[in-house]
């Protein structure tokens, strides 16, 4: 597509399996990626649970959409940021289901987020 590129940040603040937000955000990320838009993913609050490894969504009658995170690299989505403070607050270790996740402190996270022209939140 020949459209000009605008940088898009997708902010994820909800746990992966309680609502459809995580799946809906991921769908949008992949579409923007396939249109060769510049996409970054941000995870904060309960959104940090989305990247934790070894989850079993089928135990709560859900499809395993979390494995799709592994496809982000194929869509050239390589800017994936997670809030360190949110991990600490939840007692979570840096054990993620995908590589290339960058852990940022609160200030770095905010500065990085605000460099985008469009922010969508889920």
């Amino acid at each position, binding site marked *: 597509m020949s459209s000009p590129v605008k940088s898009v940040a997708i902010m994820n603040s909800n746990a992966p399996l309680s609502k459809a937000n995580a799946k809906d955000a991921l769908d*949008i990320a992949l579409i923007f990626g396939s249109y060769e838009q510049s996409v970054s993913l941000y995870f904060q609050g309960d959104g940090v649970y989305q990247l934790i490894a070894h989850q079993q969504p089928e135990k709560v009658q859900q499809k395993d959409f979390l494995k799709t995170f592994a496809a982000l690299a194929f869509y050239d989505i390589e800017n994936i940021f997670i809030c360190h403070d949110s991990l600490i607050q939840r007692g979570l270790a840096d054990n993620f289901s995908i590589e290339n996740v960058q852990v940022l402190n609160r200030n770095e996270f905010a500065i990085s987020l605000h460099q985008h022209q*469009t922010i969508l939140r889920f």
Partner: protein
Amino acid sequence: MKKLAFVITTAPNSNLTATAINMITAALKKRIDVVGVFFYQSAVLNGCEHLALPNDEYQTHKQWQQLHNDFNLPLHLCATAAEKHGLSDDINEQKITNINKAFTLSGLGELVELNVKADRLIQL
């Protein structure tokens, strides 16, 4: 003049949907170009043809239809989200639709287009 696009994610009974309608109406009345509205997640229910909200409640879905008629405002329902919420223009052999004609079924690619066309994309 700056161009705006909107992403709506809330159902017809949400206060945020009413706020979105107020914002868009104000923009259109000031002759700001609103290139389109994209309905995602539970917001696709705004495009349901047979919605019967209580008479004493704000008639959100009718306001969208009015905006479409008055300003030729493009209203895009996300096709995947619509399907998940039971909306279809192709129900059984009779091809019955439960989607209001003011709305168009669109893929997520339309959201990419709106984002590129608009100076600002506003999400509610």
